[in-house]
C-alpha cells in the first residue's frame, strides 16, 4: 500500500464513521477541533484496525493521537511493526 493509499483510506474512515467534512481532513488537522464524538472515535479506531489489520494501543504514552499526521504515521508504524513480527 502506498502512502497516498493509506492516507486516503484513513480519510475515508473518518468521513464514514464520524461524518467529518472531507475538506477538514488535512495532515495538520487537530483531532479535537474536528468535534468527533467519543463513540464515533471508538468506531474510527475499529475501522482502522479492520482496514489495516492492526491493533491500536490504548492509553499508550508512545502512541498519542492528537493530529491527523499522528494517525497516519501511527498506522504506518503499526503496519511496519506487524510486518517485522
Amino acid at each position, binding site marked *: 500500500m502506498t502512502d497516498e493509499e493509506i492516507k486516503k483510506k484513513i480519510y475515508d474512515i473518518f468521513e464514514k464513521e464520524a461524518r467529518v467534512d472531507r475538506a477538514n481532513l488535512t495532515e495538520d488537522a487537530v483531532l479535537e477541533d474536528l468535534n468527533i*464524538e*467519543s*463513540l464515533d472515535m*471508538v468506531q474510527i479506531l475499529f475501522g482502522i484496525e479492520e482496514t489495516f489489520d492492526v*491493533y491500536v*494501543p*490504548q*492509553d499508550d504514552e508512545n502512541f498519542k493521537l492528537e493530529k491527523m499526521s499522528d494517525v497516519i504515521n501511527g498506522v504506518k508504524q503499526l503496519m511496519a511493526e506487524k510486518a517485522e513480527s
Partner: protein
Amino acid sequence: MNAMGPIDQHRVVITGIGSISSLGHNVPTIWEGLTTGQSGIEKISRANAEMLHVKIAAEVKDYDPADHFDEKQLPFYDRFTQFALIAAREAIQDSGIDFQKDDLFEETAAIVASGVGGWTTIDEAFTRMYETGQARAHPLTVPRLMISAAASQVTMNFGLKGPAFCVSSACSSGNHAMGEAYWMIRTGRARAAVTGGSEAAFSIIAQRAWESVRVLAKDKCRPFSKGRQGMVIGEGAGMVIMERLEDAIARGAKIYAEVAGYGLSSDAGDIVMPDQKGGEKAMRIALQSAALNPEDIDYINAHGTGTQMNDVTETAAIKGVFGNHAHALKISSTKSMHGHALGAASALEMIATLKAVETGIVPPTINYGEPDPKCDLDYVPNEAQEMTVNGAISNSLAFGGLNAVIALRKHA
C-alpha cells in the same frame, strides 16, 4: 390480600443478605476483603489471557459448582444461575425467614436482575455449532441461557409463588430489581421478596467486545484517581431478603437497614456517556421518596466505575444534589475491589452498603493515588474508616443512561 386492591403503604426492611464475588463465596469473607482493602482483580484464569489485550478481570476464584449443587441439578444452571442460587441460599438462611408460615411463599416476590443472563451457555452453544459444525443443540440450552433463568430457579428452589421476573438495565439492573421489589412490598403487592442480581458474562469474545469500547483498564481499577484508565469486568451475585417492617419486628428478625427510598431516571443522551442531570435526578428522587434531606446522608456507595467520564460526571452530580454537604460525605467505589459486575454490580454494592450501615465501617476506594482536581470529594482512600452511617445511598448510573439509586436508613 388482594394483589390488585388499594395501594397500601408499608415500611420495608432488609433482614438477610448473601453474596458471591471475586472477594469470596459468602458475605463474611467478602466483607473481610472489603474492609481490609483487598483486590479481587487478577490476571484472567478461566481463559487463555494471552489472546486478550486486557488480561485482567475480577473472577470468582477457587469455585467448583459441585461444592454447591448436585449433579442432577447442575445441567439446568448456567454459571449466572449458580451464583444467584448460592447468594439467595445464604440470604434466606441469614434472615431466618420461614416462607411456609402463613403461606408467606404465596406473597413473596422473586425479582432477580442480570445484564445478559446465560452468557456462558450461549458462548458454548455458538462455539459448538459454528466452530465444530455440530448442528444438534443441547436440549437444556434455552432454559439455561434465558435472562430470566435465575429468577425462575430461585422461585423453584425456594418454593416462591408470588410475583417473579427478571430485570435488565445494564449496570443498573440490580438496583432496578431491588427497587421494584421494595416498591411492591411498600405498596402491598407482596409481603416479602428475594431480590438482587447475578452476572457471569465473561468469555473471550465478551472481553474483546469490551476492549473495543475502550473503557477497560489494563492494570487496576482506580476510581476517582488522576490517571485512572477505566473499569475492570467482574462477576458474581448479591441477594437480599426484604420484608415489611412490622413482619420483621413481629418475628424478631435482625434488621440490616430500612429501604427508605428509590429513585429512577433516564439520561436520554448518549448510549455510553453519562449525563450529570440524569444522575442528579435519580439521587434527588431517591431522597424525596425516602423523606430524607441531603444532610441525612452520611455515605454514598458510588457507581464509580473508574472511567474518566463516569467519575467526573458522578462527582458533579453528587455536588449538584448535596451542595456543601457533598464535602462532608464519605463516598467510596467498591468496584475498585470487586470489579464491575455489570448486572450484579448494584447487588454487590447493596451488600457493601448494608454492611456499612450495620457495622459503622465504610469500605475504601482502593488504588487511590494522586487526586484528580475534578474529583475533589472524600472517597475514603485506600483504608476503611469507622463512621456511624444513619443514611446511605447506592448509585447505579448505567450504559444507555438508565439510572437507579436506592436510599437506606439505619433502623433504630
